[in-house]
């Protein structure tokens, strides 16, 4: 831009709110109803709306047709299926925080949920929404990746189970098809100590600069948020540790394995340095 003096046509920035009158919504009361609608119609599901309505308020909302699934109460259950924890896609962060099942099996998911926004956001934001939204900074995603959670997708005539580590294809891109809904997140039994740390821009209501979730076992599992276009595991670092590398060696592997960026909130240098510091802290505290 500098040094580029000359004629220039520039459009004024899109002002304020997306026009409500241009939007259209249908509400579903049951999963069957929701999937039937999606079979015939391309609609964006809307649940807690804690991200979609921010886009609406800023005038950056792209979809125009919506399917409101907030009332599909069958998707709110949290239960056990054998040894697998099944969390309904519409479980809110508040319900995760209060759930003894989650607290017992994946306590780091409780920790992550407590650090999402304030109470108002926790009361509306859903786990399925966090997964579908596909933000690289999604607070629950490193937890789900570290425990090898499985995303259960349903359409009117099929069901798919996709490991979360294969769910994201790129920045804000998933393998979901337009006729599908996330119905549940399944978490297999987690063996080993769990560890979670979110570094935000302040103590509460903070977008993460870096998020780390880990499970300490013979083969440790470590996942990071906000260091890549999607949530990522650190397979080279995990292997190094499983093969007996020292923590210093593993930290070096990690510093080469992740490639965070500079953005409005932080820098690549800081993120890399903190990632390696937190790796050490994870190792010390779960040792």
């Amino acid at each position, binding site marked *: 831009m500098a040094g580029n003096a000359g004629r220039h046509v520039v459009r004024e920035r899109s002002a304020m709110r997306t026009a409500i009158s241009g939007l259209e919504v249908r509400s579903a009361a049951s999963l069957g109803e929701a999937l039937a609608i999606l079979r015939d119609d391309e609609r964006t599901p809307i649940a807690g709306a804690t991200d979609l309505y921010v886009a609406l308020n800023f005038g950056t909302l792209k979809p125009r047709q919506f399917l409101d699934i907030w009332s599909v109460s069958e998707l709110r259950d949290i239960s056990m299926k054998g040894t697998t924890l099944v969390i309904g896609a519409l479980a809110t962060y508040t319900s995760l925080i209060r759930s003894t099942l989650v607290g017992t099996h994946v306590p780091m998911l409780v920790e992550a949920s407590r650090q999402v926004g*304030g109470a108002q956001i926790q009361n509306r934001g859903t786990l399925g929404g966090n997964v579908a939204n596909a933000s690289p900074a999604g607070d629950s995603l490193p937890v789900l990746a570290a425990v090898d959670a499985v995303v259960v997708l349903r359409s009117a005539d099929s069901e798919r189970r996709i490991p979360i580590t294969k769910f994201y294809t790129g920045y804000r891109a998933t393998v979901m098809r337009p006729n599908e809904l996330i119905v549940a997140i399944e978490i297999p039994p987690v063996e080993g100590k769990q560890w979670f740390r979110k570094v935000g821009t302040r103590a509460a209501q903070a977008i993460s600069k870096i998020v780390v979730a880990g499970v300490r076992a013979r083969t440790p599992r470590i996942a990071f948020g906000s260091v890549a276009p999607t949530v990522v595991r650190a397979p080279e670092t995990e292997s190094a540790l499983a093969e007996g590398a020292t923590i210093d060696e593993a930290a070096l592997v990690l510093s080469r394995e992740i490639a965070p960026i500079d953005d409005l909130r932080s820098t690549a240098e800081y993120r890399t340095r903190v990632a390696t510091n937190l790796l050490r802290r994870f190792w010390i505290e779960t040792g």
Partner: protein
Amino acid sequence: MKFVLNGAGTEVKSHPMSRLLDVLREECGLTGTKEGCGEGECGACTVLVDGEPVCSCLIPVAQVEGTEVVTIEGLGDRHPLQILFMNEVGAQCGICTPGMIMAALALGPSPTLDDVKTALAGNLCRCTGYSAIYRAILKWREMPDVTSSASAAR
């Protein structure tokens, strides 16, 4: 869209994707709920939906069908928490106050200071530094006859 608003059955005609905040302020004429950011960060738009504090700037009115919505106006003008907010100077300029009060209503009967801070972590205040807000809320919780949040709109 039919729902219970401050204890009375209400029907609104706004577009179902209208923000609950705008429906309350415009169609229902209840301007006590404020807009401070439009991003769910400041909490000035906090109302109760089925007893839970939520940001009304992020809720399509379609989703409150069949629910109970309580706004600051639902507390009347003599609620002890309102009086304490003024006397303890929990309200300076007052713009965050309705949201603060609505968020505080979700607190249990004997909150610690940490409970109060956590309950209000989604409400920004620029005037008070929060200390006087804690004082107002803790005094309210120390009062006898304190009701639980479910029936706080009294």
